[in-house]
Protein backbone atom coordinates (compact mmCIF):
# COMPACT_ATOMS: atom_id res chain seq x y z
CA UNK A 1 0.00 0.00 0.00
CA UNK A 2 1.38 3.31 -0.95
CA UNK A 3 2.18 5.26 2.17
CA UNK A 4 0.47 8.56 2.56
CA UNK A 5 2.75 11.44 3.16
CA UNK A 6 1.36 14.57 4.65
CA UNK A 7 2.82 17.44 2.78
CA UNK A 8 3.07 19.85 5.62
CA UNK A 9 3.67 19.15 9.22
CA UNK A 10 1.33 21.90 10.28
CA UNK A 11 -1.64 19.94 9.15
CA UNK A 12 -4.21 19.95 11.91
CA UNK A 13 -3.18 17.31 14.36
CA UNK A 14 -6.55 15.64 14.41
CA UNK A 15 -6.01 14.76 10.80
CA UNK A 16 -3.11 12.47 11.55
CA UNK A 17 -4.05 8.87 11.11
CA UNK A 18 -2.28 5.63 10.77
CA UNK A 19 -1.36 4.96 7.18
CA UNK A 20 -3.31 1.77 7.17
CA UNK A 21 -6.40 3.46 8.62
CA UNK A 22 -6.57 6.19 6.04
CA UNK A 23 -5.82 3.81 3.23
CA UNK A 24 -8.60 1.58 4.42
CA UNK A 25 -11.09 4.42 4.48
CA UNK A 26 -10.07 5.66 1.07
CA UNK A 27 -10.42 2.22 -0.38
CA UNK A 28 -13.82 1.71 1.19
CA UNK A 29 -15.20 5.05 0.07
CA UNK A 30 -13.94 4.48 -3.45
CA UNK A 31 -15.72 1.15 -3.52
CA UNK A 32 -18.85 2.71 -2.12
CA UNK A 33 -18.98 5.36 -4.83
CA UNK A 34 -18.42 2.74 -7.47
CA UNK A 35 -21.17 0.50 -6.10
CA UNK A 36 -23.64 3.37 -5.87
CA UNK A 37 -23.18 4.13 -9.53
CA UNK A 38 -22.78 0.72 -11.05
CA UNK A 39 -25.14 -1.65 -9.26
CA UNK A 40 -28.83 -2.22 -9.82
CA UNK A 41 -30.76 -1.98 -6.58
CA UNK A 42 -34.00 -0.86 -5.06
CA UNK A 43 -35.44 -0.48 -1.64
CA UNK A 44 -37.33 1.45 0.96
CA UNK A 45 -35.68 4.29 2.73
CA UNK A 46 -36.62 6.28 5.77
CA UNK A 47 -35.58 9.90 5.74
CA UNK A 48 -35.33 11.47 9.16
CA UNK A 49 -34.85 15.14 9.80
CA UNK A 50 -35.73 17.37 12.70
CA UNK A 51 -37.75 14.67 14.33
CA UNK A 52 -39.81 13.92 11.25
CA UNK A 53 -39.82 10.60 9.49
CA UNK A 54 -40.67 10.05 5.86
CA UNK A 55 -40.77 6.92 3.77
CA UNK A 56 -39.27 6.89 0.34
CA UNK A 57 -38.76 4.30 -2.31
CA UNK A 58 -35.60 4.22 -4.35
CA UNK A 59 -34.69 2.52 -7.60
CA UNK A 60 -31.26 2.61 -9.17
CA UNK A 61 -30.53 1.16 -12.55
CA UNK A 62 -27.32 1.08 -14.48
CA UNK A 63 -27.10 -0.34 -17.96
CA UNK A 64 -25.82 0.46 -21.41
CA UNK A 65 -28.13 3.47 -21.50
CA UNK A 66 -26.50 4.90 -18.48
CA UNK A 67 -27.30 5.49 -14.88
CA UNK A 68 -30.81 6.24 -13.68
CA UNK A 69 -32.22 6.75 -10.22
CA UNK A 70 -35.76 7.35 -9.05
CA UNK A 71 -36.80 8.46 -5.59
CA UNK A 72 -40.50 8.39 -4.78
CA UNK A 73 -42.20 9.80 -1.73
CA UNK A 74 -44.41 7.12 -0.27
CA UNK A 75 -46.51 9.53 1.75
CA UNK A 76 -47.03 11.86 -1.13
CA UNK A 77 -46.90 12.02 -4.85
CA UNK A 78 -43.62 13.67 -5.63
CA UNK A 79 -40.67 12.02 -7.17
CA UNK A 80 -37.23 12.84 -8.45
CA UNK A 81 -35.76 11.00 -11.40
CA UNK A 82 -32.17 11.36 -12.42
CA UNK A 83 -30.95 10.15 -15.79
CA UNK A 84 -27.24 10.65 -15.96
CA UNK A 85 -26.88 14.28 -14.96
CA UNK A 86 -30.41 15.40 -15.80
CA UNK A 87 -32.54 15.66 -12.68
CA UNK A 88 -36.30 15.93 -13.08
CA UNK A 89 -38.60 16.70 -10.17
CA UNK A 90 -42.24 15.77 -10.54
CA UNK A 91 -44.39 17.84 -8.21
CA UNK A 92 -48.00 16.86 -8.81
CA UNK A 93 -49.23 18.83 -5.84
CA UNK A 94 -48.22 21.99 -7.55
CA UNK A 95 -48.73 20.56 -11.00
CA UNK A 96 -45.24 21.34 -12.02
CA UNK A 97 -42.15 19.61 -13.26
CA UNK A 98 -38.72 21.11 -12.69
CA UNK A 99 -35.77 19.95 -14.72
CA UNK A 100 -32.19 20.64 -13.78
CA UNK A 101 -28.66 19.47 -14.33
CA UNK A 102 -26.43 17.82 -11.78
CA UNK A 103 -23.16 19.66 -11.70
CA UNK A 104 -21.57 18.42 -8.57
CA UNK A 105 -18.53 17.25 -10.40
CA UNK A 106 -16.35 17.07 -7.36
CA UNK A 107 -17.93 13.84 -6.36
CA UNK A 108 -16.46 12.32 -3.29
CA UNK A 109 -14.91 9.63 -5.39
CA UNK A 110 -13.24 12.01 -7.77
CA UNK A 111 -11.71 13.95 -4.96
CA UNK A 112 -10.63 11.01 -2.94
CA UNK A 113 -8.85 9.31 -5.76
CA UNK A 114 -6.42 12.16 -5.64
CA UNK A 115 -5.44 11.22 -2.17
CA UNK A 116 -7.16 11.52 1.09
CA UNK A 117 -4.52 13.80 2.45
CA UNK A 118 -6.03 16.62 0.48
CA UNK A 119 -8.97 16.51 2.79
CA UNK A 120 -6.78 16.51 5.83
CA UNK A 121 -7.26 20.18 6.55
CA UNK A 122 -11.00 20.02 6.33
CA UNK A 123 -12.09 16.61 7.51
CA UNK A 124 -10.89 13.66 9.47
CA UNK A 125 -11.86 10.29 8.08
CA UNK A 126 -12.00 7.23 10.26
CA UNK A 127 -13.55 3.83 10.63
CA UNK A 128 -15.90 4.36 13.53
CA UNK A 129 -17.14 0.84 14.03
CA UNK A 130 -19.59 -1.66 12.70
CA UNK A 131 -23.35 -1.86 12.57
CA UNK A 132 -26.32 -3.45 11.00
CA UNK A 133 -28.72 -1.81 8.59
CA UNK A 134 -31.61 -3.53 6.80
CA UNK A 135 -30.25 -6.84 7.92
CA UNK A 136 -26.84 -6.23 6.42
CA UNK A 137 -23.54 -5.87 8.18
CA UNK A 138 -22.03 -2.48 7.70
CA UNK A 139 -18.81 -0.65 8.35
CA UNK A 140 -19.28 2.79 9.80
CA UNK A 141 -17.12 5.57 8.41
CA UNK A 142 -17.04 8.86 10.22
CA UNK A 143 -16.16 12.13 8.56
CA UNK A 144 -15.50 14.78 11.14
CA UNK A 145 -15.07 18.40 10.09
CA UNK A 146 -12.07 20.19 11.45
CA UNK A 147 -13.79 23.54 11.70
CA UNK A 148 -17.23 24.98 12.30
CA UNK A 149 -17.88 25.89 8.71
CA UNK A 150 -19.07 22.53 7.52
CA UNK A 151 -21.02 19.55 8.70
CA UNK A 152 -19.86 16.04 9.41
CA UNK A 153 -21.07 12.72 8.09
CA UNK A 154 -21.39 9.12 9.06
CA UNK A 155 -21.71 6.48 6.41
CA UNK A 156 -22.80 2.90 6.98
CA UNK A 157 -21.33 0.88 4.15
CA UNK A 158 -22.54 -2.61 3.35
CA UNK A 159 -19.68 -5.02 3.85
CA UNK A 160 -21.01 -7.22 1.09
CA UNK A 161 -22.02 -4.92 -1.76
CA UNK A 162 -20.31 -1.71 -0.57
CA UNK A 163 -23.54 0.19 -1.04
CA UNK A 164 -24.33 3.10 1.24
CA UNK A 165 -26.97 1.75 3.57
CA UNK A 166 -27.34 4.66 5.91
CA UNK A 167 -26.04 8.14 5.87
CA UNK A 168 -26.12 10.80 8.52
CA UNK A 169 -25.42 14.50 8.34
CA UNK A 170 -24.06 15.70 11.66
CA UNK A 171 -24.33 19.28 12.81
CA UNK A 172 -21.77 21.43 14.50
CA UNK A 173 -22.77 20.38 17.97
CA UNK A 174 -22.95 16.71 17.12
CA UNK A 175 -26.67 16.58 16.53
CA UNK A 176 -28.10 14.56 13.69
CA UNK A 177 -29.43 17.00 11.12
CA UNK A 178 -30.58 14.53 8.56
CA UNK A 179 -30.43 10.84 8.12
CA UNK A 180 -31.38 8.38 5.45
CA UNK A 181 -31.44 4.66 6.03
CA UNK A 182 -32.58 1.71 4.04
CA UNK A 183 -35.13 -0.41 5.82
CA UNK A 184 -35.16 -2.78 2.90
CA UNK A 185 -32.66 -3.18 0.16
CA UNK A 186 -32.39 -5.60 -2.68
CA UNK A 187 -29.54 -5.75 -5.13
CA UNK A 188 -30.60 -7.32 -8.39
CA UNK A 189 -29.31 -8.06 -11.85
CA UNK A 190 -31.90 -6.03 -13.60
CA UNK A 191 -34.65 -3.57 -12.87
CA UNK A 192 -37.49 -3.07 -15.37
CA UNK A 193 -37.38 0.29 -17.12
CA UNK A 194 -40.89 0.94 -15.94
CA UNK A 195 -39.65 1.32 -12.40
CA UNK A 196 -37.53 4.25 -13.41
CA UNK A 197 -40.40 6.12 -14.99
CA UNK A 198 -42.58 8.56 -13.12
CA UNK A 199 -45.92 7.30 -11.90
CA UNK A 200 -47.50 10.54 -12.96
CA UNK A 201 -47.77 11.95 -16.39
CA UNK A 202 -46.34 15.41 -16.41
CA UNK A 203 -47.99 16.33 -19.66
CA UNK A 204 -50.56 18.61 -18.12
CA UNK A 205 -48.11 20.15 -15.72
CA UNK A 206 -46.17 23.34 -15.94
CA UNK A 207 -42.65 22.55 -16.99
CA UNK A 208 -39.69 24.55 -15.78
CA UNK A 209 -36.70 23.49 -17.76
CA UNK A 210 -33.50 24.63 -16.18
CA UNK A 211 -31.22 22.16 -17.87
CA UNK A 212 -27.78 23.41 -18.66
CA UNK A 213 -27.09 23.27 -22.34
CA UNK A 214 -23.57 22.74 -23.45
CA UNK A 215 -24.08 25.60 -25.83
CA UNK A 216 -24.83 27.99 -23.02
CA UNK A 217 -22.56 30.90 -23.32
CA UNK A 218 -19.69 30.83 -20.91
CA UNK A 219 -20.25 33.05 -17.96
CA UNK A 220 -17.75 35.84 -17.87
CA UNK A 221 -15.85 35.24 -14.69
CA UNK A 222 -16.66 38.62 -13.31
CA UNK A 223 -17.88 37.38 -9.98
CA UNK A 224 -15.48 36.58 -7.22
CA UNK A 225 -15.74 35.41 -3.68
CA UNK A 226 -13.14 37.01 -1.55
CA UNK A 227 -13.62 35.02 1.59
CA UNK A 228 -14.52 31.38 1.91
CA UNK A 229 -13.80 28.83 4.58
CA UNK A 230 -10.64 26.85 4.17
CA UNK A 231 -10.76 24.36 1.33
CA UNK A 232 -13.79 25.75 -0.46
CA UNK A 233 -13.34 26.64 -4.10
CA UNK A 234 -15.50 27.80 -6.94
CA UNK A 235 -15.82 24.62 -8.95
CA UNK A 236 -18.21 25.71 -11.64
CA UNK A 237 -19.94 28.66 -13.22
CA UNK A 238 -22.99 28.78 -15.40
CA UNK A 239 -26.24 30.52 -16.02
CA UNK A 240 -29.25 28.97 -14.42
CA UNK A 241 -32.72 29.28 -15.75
CA UNK A 242 -35.01 29.65 -12.78
CA UNK A 243 -38.75 29.12 -12.74
CA UNK A 244 -40.73 32.24 -13.40
CA UNK A 245 -37.79 34.37 -14.43
CA UNK A 246 -37.27 35.58 -17.91
CA UNK A 247 -33.59 36.19 -17.33
CA UNK A 248 -31.18 33.42 -16.44
CA UNK A 249 -29.24 34.08 -13.28
CA UNK A 250 -25.50 33.94 -12.83
CA UNK A 251 -24.48 30.90 -10.90
CA UNK A 252 -21.46 29.50 -9.15
CA UNK A 253 -21.04 26.26 -7.30
CA UNK A 254 -18.66 26.31 -4.40
CA UNK A 255 -17.43 23.13 -2.82
CA UNK A 256 -14.85 21.65 -0.51
CA UNK A 257 -15.22 18.29 -2.18
CA UNK A 258 -17.86 17.03 0.19
CA UNK A 259 -20.21 19.93 0.91
CA UNK A 260 -21.74 22.02 -1.83
CA UNK A 261 -22.91 25.60 -1.86
CA UNK A 262 -24.78 27.34 -4.67
CA UNK A 263 -24.46 31.04 -5.32
CA UNK A 264 -27.12 32.80 -7.36
CA UNK A 265 -26.59 36.34 -8.53
CA UNK A 266 -29.29 38.25 -10.32
CA UNK A 267 -29.87 41.78 -11.28
CA UNK A 268 -32.78 43.60 -9.77
CA UNK A 269 -35.60 43.92 -12.19
CA UNK A 270 -39.34 44.16 -12.22
CA UNK A 271 -39.68 40.49 -11.35
CA UNK A 272 -37.31 40.62 -8.44
CA UNK A 273 -38.55 39.57 -5.10
CA UNK A 274 -35.31 39.47 -3.22
CA UNK A 275 -34.94 37.65 0.05
CA UNK A 276 -32.52 39.23 2.46
CA UNK A 277 -31.06 37.60 5.52
CA UNK A 278 -30.83 34.07 6.82
CA UNK A 279 -33.23 31.20 6.43
CA UNK A 280 -33.09 27.48 6.74
CA UNK A 281 -34.82 24.40 5.54
CA UNK A 282 -33.63 21.51 7.59
CA UNK A 283 -29.96 20.96 6.97
CA UNK A 284 -29.92 23.53 4.18
CA UNK A 285 -29.01 27.09 5.07
CA UNK A 286 -29.78 30.06 2.89
CA UNK A 287 -28.55 33.60 2.99
CA UNK A 288 -29.60 36.52 0.83
CA UNK A 289 -27.84 39.81 0.45
CA UNK A 290 -27.58 42.81 -1.82
CA UNK A 291 -24.58 43.71 -3.93
CA UNK A 292 -24.95 47.03 -5.75
CA UNK A 293 -27.86 46.44 -8.08
CA UNK A 294 -27.69 42.70 -7.74
CA UNK A 295 -29.20 40.27 -5.39
CA UNK A 296 -27.15 37.37 -4.06
CA UNK A 297 -28.66 34.15 -2.74
CA UNK A 298 -26.46 31.43 -1.27
CA UNK A 299 -27.77 27.93 -0.53
CA UNK A 300 -25.93 24.95 0.91
CA UNK A 301 -25.75 22.04 3.33
CA UNK A 302 -23.42 23.99 5.53
CA UNK A 303 -23.83 26.03 8.69
CA UNK A 304 -25.36 29.45 8.46
CA UNK A 305 -22.08 31.19 9.09
CA UNK A 306 -20.71 29.64 5.92
CA UNK A 307 -23.49 30.73 3.58
CA UNK A 308 -23.40 34.13 5.19
CA UNK A 309 -19.67 34.47 4.77
CA UNK A 310 -19.87 33.53 1.12
CA UNK A 311 -22.85 35.77 0.39
CA UNK A 312 -21.17 38.75 1.97
CA UNK A 313 -17.92 38.11 0.15
CA UNK A 314 -19.24 38.12 -3.39
CA UNK A 315 -17.81 40.92 -5.45
CA UNK A 316 -17.56 41.89 -9.04
CA UNK A 317 -14.67 43.21 -11.06
CA UNK A 318 -11.27 41.94 -11.80
CA UNK A 319 -10.23 41.20 -8.26
CA UNK A 320 -8.36 37.94 -7.83
CA UNK A 321 -10.57 35.15 -6.58
Amino acid sequence: MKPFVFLTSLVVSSAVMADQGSGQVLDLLNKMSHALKSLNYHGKVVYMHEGHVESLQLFHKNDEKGERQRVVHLNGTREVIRKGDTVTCYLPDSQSVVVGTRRFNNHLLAKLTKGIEKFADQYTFDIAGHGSVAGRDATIVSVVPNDVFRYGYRFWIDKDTKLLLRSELVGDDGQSLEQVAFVELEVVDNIPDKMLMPAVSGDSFTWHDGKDNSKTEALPSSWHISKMPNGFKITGRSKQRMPNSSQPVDYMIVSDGLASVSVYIEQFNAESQGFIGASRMGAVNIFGSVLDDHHVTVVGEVPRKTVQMIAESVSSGSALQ
Partner: protein
Amino acid sequence: MQELTGDVNMTIEKGEKLSAFLDGETGRDESNTLISELCENQELKSCWERYHVISDSMRSGLPDSIHDGFADKVMSAIATEPAILAPQPSPISTKPAQAHTNPITKRFAGFAIAASVAALAVVGVQTLYHEETTSQVATMPDKSQFIGIDGQPRVATAKPVIRQSGNSGIPNASTVSSSSSTSVFNHPPLKRNYPDKSVDPKLLKYIVNHSQIASGSGGSDIFSPARIVTSTQLQGGTNQVQR
Protein backbone atom coordinates in the same frame (compact mmCIF):
# COMPACT_ATOMS: atom_id res chain seq x y z
CA MET B 1 -38.16 26.73 12.68
CA GLN B 2 -39.07 24.49 9.89
CA GLU B 3 -42.01 23.36 8.03
CA LEU B 4 -42.36 19.94 6.80
CA THR B 5 -44.37 17.12 8.13
CA GLY B 6 -46.58 16.66 11.06
CA ASP B 7 -44.83 14.71 13.77
CA VAL B 8 -45.40 17.48 16.18
CA ASN B 9 -44.27 15.76 19.27
CA MET B 10 -41.36 13.97 17.86
CA THR B 11 -38.13 15.45 18.94
CA ILE B 12 -34.64 14.83 17.82
CA GLU B 13 -34.25 12.44 20.68
CA LYS B 14 -37.10 10.37 19.44
CA GLY B 15 -35.57 10.51 16.03
CA GLU B 16 -32.52 8.89 17.47
CA LYS B 17 -34.64 6.32 19.23
CA LEU B 18 -36.29 5.54 15.96
CA SER B 19 -32.91 5.24 14.43
CA ALA B 20 -31.93 2.68 17.02
CA PHE B 21 -35.25 0.95 16.51
CA LEU B 22 -34.52 0.57 12.84
CA ASP B 23 -31.22 -0.96 13.71
CA GLY B 24 -32.95 -3.55 15.80
CA GLU B 25 -31.31 -2.18 18.87
CA THR B 26 -34.33 -1.35 20.98
CA GLY B 27 -36.12 -3.72 23.25
CA ARG B 28 -39.67 -4.76 22.63
CA ASP B 29 -41.13 -2.52 25.31
CA GLU B 30 -39.21 0.44 24.13
CA SER B 31 -40.29 -0.21 20.57
CA ASN B 32 -43.92 -0.26 21.61
CA THR B 33 -43.52 2.88 23.63
CA LEU B 34 -41.81 4.58 20.76
CA ILE B 35 -44.55 3.81 18.32
CA SER B 36 -47.22 4.80 20.81
CA GLU B 37 -45.51 8.05 21.56
CA LEU B 38 -45.13 8.82 17.92
CA CYS B 39 -48.75 8.14 17.30
CA GLU B 40 -50.32 10.10 20.06
CA ASN B 41 -52.81 12.86 19.50
CA GLN B 42 -53.64 14.33 16.15
CA GLU B 43 -50.76 12.88 14.30
CA LEU B 44 -52.25 9.40 14.26
CA LYS B 45 -53.01 9.27 10.60
CA SER B 46 -49.83 10.87 9.40
CA CYS B 47 -47.82 8.69 11.71
CA TRP B 48 -49.47 5.56 10.56
CA GLU B 49 -49.01 6.48 6.94
CA ARG B 50 -45.36 6.21 7.52
CA TYR B 51 -45.48 2.88 9.17
CA HIS B 52 -47.85 1.34 6.68
CA VAL B 53 -44.89 0.98 4.43
CA ILE B 54 -43.18 -1.27 6.88
CA SER B 55 -46.29 -3.19 7.84
CA ASP B 56 -47.21 -3.66 4.21
CA SER B 57 -43.96 -5.28 3.45
CA MET B 58 -44.36 -7.52 6.42
CA ARG B 59 -47.77 -8.71 5.30
CA SER B 60 -46.89 -9.31 1.74
CA GLY B 61 -43.93 -11.37 2.59
CA LEU B 62 -40.58 -10.42 3.85
CA PRO B 63 -37.89 -9.69 1.40
CA ASP B 64 -34.88 -11.66 2.39
CA SER B 65 -32.97 -8.62 3.29
CA ILE B 66 -35.22 -7.60 6.11
CA HIS B 67 -33.53 -8.02 9.39
CA ASP B 68 -35.27 -10.78 11.30
CA GLY B 69 -35.19 -8.98 14.58
CA PHE B 70 -36.54 -5.84 12.99
CA ALA B 71 -39.52 -7.64 11.57
CA ASP B 72 -40.38 -9.18 14.87
CA LYS B 73 -40.18 -5.90 16.61
CA VAL B 74 -42.41 -4.15 14.15
CA MET B 75 -44.96 -6.91 14.12
CA SER B 76 -45.12 -7.15 17.86
CA ALA B 77 -45.42 -3.44 18.14
CA ILE B 78 -48.17 -3.38 15.56
CA ALA B 79 -50.01 -6.20 17.25
CA THR B 80 -50.26 -4.24 20.44
CA GLU B 81 -51.56 -1.11 18.76
CA PRO B 82 -55.11 -0.10 19.41
CA ALA B 83 -57.31 -1.49 16.72
CA ILE B 84 -57.98 1.86 15.23
CA LEU B 85 -54.41 2.15 14.21
CA ALA B 86 -54.14 -1.20 12.60
CA PRO B 87 -53.90 -0.79 8.90
CA GLN B 88 -57.07 -1.71 7.18
CA PRO B 89 -56.62 -4.12 4.40
CA SER B 90 -57.12 -2.03 1.38
CA PRO B 91 -60.27 -2.98 -0.46
CA ILE B 92 -58.51 -2.54 -3.71
CA SER B 93 -55.37 -4.41 -3.08
CA THR B 94 -54.91 -8.04 -3.78
CA LYS B 95 -51.77 -8.26 -1.71
CA PRO B 96 -50.55 -11.70 -2.61
CA ALA B 97 -47.17 -11.47 -4.14
CA GLN B 98 -47.82 -14.61 -6.12
CA ALA B 99 -50.18 -12.72 -8.37
CA HIS B 100 -47.19 -11.24 -10.04
CA THR B 101 -44.81 -13.35 -11.97
CA ASN B 102 -42.18 -10.77 -12.52
CA PRO B 103 -39.73 -11.22 -9.69
CA ILE B 104 -39.25 -7.52 -9.40
CA THR B 105 -42.90 -6.49 -9.40
CA LYS B 106 -43.66 -9.37 -7.13
CA ARG B 107 -41.99 -7.41 -4.42
CA PHE B 108 -44.10 -4.42 -5.19
CA ALA B 109 -47.50 -6.01 -4.85
CA GLY B 110 -47.77 -4.67 -1.38
CA PHE B 111 -45.75 -1.56 -1.89
CA ALA B 112 -47.36 1.76 -2.31
CA ILE B 113 -46.03 3.50 -5.34
CA ALA B 114 -46.84 7.12 -5.97
CA ALA B 115 -50.42 7.97 -6.75
CA SER B 116 -51.22 7.51 -10.38
CA VAL B 117 -54.33 9.52 -11.03
CA ALA B 118 -52.30 12.50 -11.87
CA ALA B 119 -54.17 14.25 -14.58
CA LEU B 120 -57.45 14.41 -12.79
CA ALA B 121 -56.78 14.38 -9.12
CA VAL B 122 -54.14 16.20 -7.24
CA VAL B 123 -53.34 14.94 -3.82
CA GLY B 124 -52.25 17.81 -1.73
CA VAL B 125 -49.50 16.62 0.54
CA GLN B 126 -50.52 19.21 3.03
CA THR B 127 -54.00 17.81 3.29
CA LEU B 128 -52.61 14.66 4.82
CA TYR B 129 -51.85 16.66 7.89
CA HIS B 130 -54.59 19.20 7.73
CA GLU B 131 -56.39 19.35 10.99
CA GLU B 132 -59.68 20.14 9.40
CA THR B 133 -60.67 17.42 7.07
CA THR B 134 -63.03 19.60 5.21
CA SER B 135 -62.11 18.36 1.81
CA GLN B 136 -64.21 15.66 0.36
CA VAL B 137 -62.82 12.20 0.46
CA ALA B 138 -62.85 10.66 -2.92
CA THR B 139 -62.28 7.09 -3.78
CA MET B 140 -59.03 6.43 -5.45
CA PRO B 141 -59.39 4.00 -8.29
CA ASP B 142 -57.34 0.91 -7.95
CA LYS B 143 -56.10 1.07 -11.48
CA SER B 144 -55.79 4.10 -13.56
CA GLN B 145 -54.81 4.51 -17.08
CA PHE B 146 -52.68 7.35 -18.11
CA ILE B 147 -50.24 8.24 -20.73
CA GLY B 148 -46.70 7.80 -19.70
CA ILE B 149 -44.01 10.15 -20.73
CA ASP B 150 -43.10 7.85 -23.55
CA GLY B 151 -46.55 8.26 -25.01
CA GLN B 152 -47.61 4.73 -24.26
CA PRO B 153 -50.65 4.13 -22.15
CA ARG B 154 -49.81 2.56 -18.87
CA VAL B 155 -51.85 0.93 -16.23
CA ALA B 156 -50.79 1.41 -12.71
CA THR B 157 -50.99 -1.91 -11.05
CA ALA B 158 -49.65 -0.89 -7.74
CA LYS B 159 -52.12 0.43 -5.29
CA PRO B 160 -52.00 4.13 -4.69
CA VAL B 161 -50.13 5.59 -1.81
CA ILE B 162 -53.14 7.07 -0.19
CA ARG B 163 -55.49 4.41 1.01
CA GLN B 164 -58.89 4.66 2.49
CA SER B 165 -58.99 3.50 6.03
CA GLY B 166 -62.58 2.49 5.56
CA ASN B 167 -64.08 1.31 8.77
CA SER B 168 -61.90 3.21 11.08
CA GLY B 169 -63.63 6.40 10.21
CA ILE B 170 -60.41 8.24 9.91
CA PRO B 171 -59.71 9.19 6.38
CA ASN B 172 -56.13 8.70 5.55
CA ALA B 173 -56.12 11.37 2.97
CA SER B 174 -58.12 13.98 1.32
CA THR B 175 -58.08 14.48 -2.34
CA VAL B 176 -58.69 17.68 -4.12
CA SER B 177 -59.89 17.66 -7.64
CA SER B 178 -57.70 19.74 -9.78
CA SER B 179 -60.33 21.66 -11.53
CA SER B 180 -59.16 25.15 -11.97
CA SER B 181 -61.36 26.51 -9.28
CA THR B 182 -59.86 24.36 -6.59
CA SER B 183 -56.22 24.33 -7.50
CA VAL B 184 -53.68 24.03 -4.78
CA PHE B 185 -52.91 27.69 -5.25
CA ASN B 186 -56.21 28.50 -3.65
CA HIS B 187 -55.85 26.01 -0.89
CA PRO B 188 -56.12 27.57 2.52
CA PRO B 189 -52.86 27.80 4.37
CA LEU B 190 -52.03 24.81 6.45
CA LYS B 191 -52.68 25.36 10.10
CA ARG B 192 -50.14 24.17 12.51
CA ASN B 193 -50.23 23.83 16.21
CA TYR B 194 -46.61 24.49 16.76
CA PRO B 195 -44.58 27.60 16.17
CA ASP B 196 -43.43 27.50 12.66
CA LYS B 197 -41.27 29.85 10.75
CA SER B 198 -41.87 28.72 7.25
CA VAL B 199 -39.37 29.01 4.52
CA ASP B 200 -40.12 32.01 2.37
CA PRO B 201 -41.67 30.70 -0.83
CA LYS B 202 -39.35 32.91 -2.83
CA LEU B 203 -36.50 30.68 -1.72
CA LEU B 204 -37.95 27.42 -2.86
CA LYS B 205 -36.81 27.71 -6.42
CA TYR B 206 -33.25 28.14 -5.21
CA ILE B 207 -33.53 25.14 -2.93
CA VAL B 208 -34.86 22.94 -5.69
CA ASN B 209 -32.25 24.15 -8.14
CA HIS B 210 -29.45 23.67 -5.64
CA SER B 211 -30.69 20.19 -4.78
CA GLN B 212 -30.69 19.21 -8.42
CA ILE B 213 -27.25 20.62 -9.11
CA ALA B 214 -25.74 19.22 -5.97
CA SER B 215 -27.19 15.73 -6.23
CA GLY B 216 -24.40 13.51 -5.08
CA SER B 217 -22.85 15.95 -2.69
CA GLY B 218 -22.06 14.68 0.74
CA GLY B 219 -21.21 11.31 -0.70
CA SER B 220 -24.85 10.45 -1.05
CA ASP B 221 -27.26 10.81 -3.92
CA ILE B 222 -30.31 10.62 -1.77
CA PHE B 223 -30.34 13.60 0.58
CA SER B 224 -31.07 15.99 -2.25
CA PRO B 225 -34.02 14.14 -3.76
CA ALA B 226 -35.31 13.33 -0.28
CA ARG B 227 -35.46 17.01 0.58
CA ILE B 228 -37.36 17.83 -2.56
CA VAL B 229 -39.95 15.11 -2.33
CA THR B 230 -40.70 15.53 1.33
CA SER B 231 -40.80 19.25 1.83
CA THR B 232 -44.31 20.47 2.47
CA GLN B 233 -43.01 23.90 1.70
CA LEU B 234 -42.78 23.02 -1.94
CA GLN B 235 -46.34 23.84 -2.69
CA GLY B 236 -47.33 25.70 -5.77
CA GLY B 237 -46.23 29.20 -5.07
CA THR B 238 -47.76 32.33 -6.36
CA ASN B 239 -45.28 32.51 -9.14
CA GLN B 240 -46.25 29.70 -11.41
CA VAL B 241 -46.10 30.70 -14.99
CA GLN B 242 -48.04 28.75 -17.54
CA ARG B 243 -45.92 27.42 -20.32
